[in-house]
């Protein structure tokens, strides 16, 4: 700012200095922008590389996967790797299981977390603070800690090796309740009062007004939940002893048993099959996710 002051002061022919200063500032801002862009590119590289690596490897021949330094683009893409991967096991069965389980979990979670978070956000009932505390505490318990009692419980109900056994433990989500409660709390009271004066029943207020308003948050949570359960390896592995209810991640892991340890190309082809639906889901909901993070309601 000082440079401009000197330059524009009357009676001082310092135009030359002014241009120089301006040039310098322009260069500094250009370099900063350059660094910023370079940093972002680096980040993209770090995050994208494993995916590109996976894709590239999935199209190589086995010897090609061992070449050092590695080649990024295979000379002759071997599409049959995908067929090989698909044929190592009952993949259609795994895929169906994965879809049934992930989607059922998603639907159940929506049915439970919406009313729960709405109640926590909007009503003051006896023990509401305590109950919400209990919900929050469950967030801090890792699955690995509770799988044994849950296993015994499912076993007692004869639910091992069934879809229900993989769905029911995730029927609700503490994280979802927390996230949605915060979103519901941001909505102004007057909106609800207006709806009450419009003679809307409570369920109608939730369905027609509240849920549409938190849609970005809801979609974001749905995606997180879908990815988590689609990719989940630990839980289906522990809760199944046969193929009846096994899901894709377990099928992919089994490629190693079937094809041998070093068949990276087949393994990566399996991984692409696993990841593809998630990418599709992400592209479909991207718009809402970005909204959820810049969400501030309507003024």
């Amino acid at each position, binding site marked *: 700012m000082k440079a401009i002051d000197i330059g524009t002061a009357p009676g001082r022919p310092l135009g030359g200095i002014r241009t120089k200063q301006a040039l310098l500032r322009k260069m500094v801002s250009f370099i900063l922008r350059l660094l910023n862009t370079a940093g972002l590119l680096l980040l993209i590289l770090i995050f994208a590389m494993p995916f590109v690596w996976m894709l590239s490897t999935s199209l190589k021949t086995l010897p090609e996967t061992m070449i050092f330094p590695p080649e990024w683009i295979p000379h002759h893409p071997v599409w049959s790797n995908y067929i090989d991967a698909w044929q190592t096991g009952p993949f259609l069965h795994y895929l169906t299981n994965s879809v049934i389980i992930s989607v059922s979990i998603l639907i159940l979670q929506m049915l439970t977390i919406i009313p729960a978070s709405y109640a926590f956000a909007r009503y003051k009932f006896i023990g509401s603070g305590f109950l919400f505390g209990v919900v929050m505490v469950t967030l801090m318990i890792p699955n690995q800690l509770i799988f044994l009692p849950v296993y015994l419980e499912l076993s007692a109900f004869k639910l091992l090796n069934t879809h229900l056994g993989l769905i029911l433990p995730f029927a609700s989500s503490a994280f979802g309740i927390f996230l949605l409660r915060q979103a519901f709390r941001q909505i*102004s009271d*007057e*909106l609800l*009062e*207006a*709806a*009450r*004066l*419009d*003679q*809307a*029943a409570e369920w*109608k207020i939730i369905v*027609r*007004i509240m849920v*549409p*308003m938190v*849609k970005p948050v809801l979609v974001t949570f749905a995606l997180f939940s879908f990815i988590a359960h689609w990719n989940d390896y630990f839980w289906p592995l522990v809760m199944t002893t046969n193929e009846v209810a096994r899901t894709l991640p377990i099928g992919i892991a089994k490629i190693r048993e079937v094809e041998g340890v070093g068949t990276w190309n087949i393994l990566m082809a399996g991984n692409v099959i696993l990841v593809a639906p998630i990418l599709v889901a992400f592209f479909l909901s991207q718009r809402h996710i970005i909204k959820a993070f810049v969400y501030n*309601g*309507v003024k």
Partner: protein
Amino acid sequence: MAQILLKSISKKFKDETVIEDLNLEIKDGSFTVLVGPSGCGKSTTLRMVAGLEKQSSGEIWIDDVCVNDTPPGLRDVAMVFQNYALYPTMTVRGNIEFGLKNRGVSKSERGKLVKDISEIVGLAPYLDKKPQSLSGGQRQRVALARAMVKQPKVFILDEPLSNLDAKLRNQMRTELIQLHKRLGTTFVYVTHDQVEAMSMGDEIVVMNMGAIQQADSPMKLYQDPANLFTAQFIGTPAMNIMNMQEVQGLDIRSDRPVGYVGFRPEQGLMNPAQQVEGLELKGEILTRESLGAENIYQIRSQAGVFFVKTFLKPLESADHVNITIPYNELFYFGTDGERLYGAGIHARHLAAGGVLI
């Protein structure tokens, strides 16, 4: 069309009493304005009428029905909120017909009602837009349309104009007055702005500290304030109030001790050409505000600082002026702030001056 009756209403929030023993009759078809400083309980009163807040004790009657236990949706009242409270995920049409849908009005009838209303408030081209893409004034109209379309017995408006800019506010003010004329429905309007209250209401309820100070027509309120609070709340600038002990040259007869004397700024005559019988104050002009047709002076005298308003006169340039307030334009208040109606100037003053009250 409805009359509203509040019978010894009180409202407590936890231990704090916001409103105590409030009695009020809102006449059928009136434009009643509740006015007072923020925190005086006017919004709470309004919200209790709407059913959004439950009174701690007392009864609320709309027409011949006690609505104490009637939920807000069934009281046949419609409300316009300060921030409009439009449903952001619905279109303008969706906002307007939401209440109708909940009442089970048929689709064809809804369409007709929405069309009529949107033409009245000038929203027809915007029916399929979302509220976010509308201007403040248009949002205000949507909020009004949403209330009107239900054809309620009572309209409740909670500071509906306070989010608009000055020009739009004036425009909407006129529109609301016309709307009230056209509908003939009871309007209950809350504002903290006394100018708004005076210009719109045909009945004004001045509130302070959870109690009604005075409920009257605008002119009655202005010319005949019941107490110090009303006198100082209504009018721009407000009534000048002086402590009786600091005023000299007044010989008052009154059965009760006079605590304060007041006069309206426009009743103070500056350097009067002829002799006027009245209270004379000498003072120094502190500030001059020229608003075109009228000038407002802030003057310091021995009795304190006060305002004088003159109309269609050149701006006074002298520093020191004489102000005369005719005796019959003086208001007397007791030490507790209540108006002393019986008080007046002692007869010999009047006899000497020959002025009749």
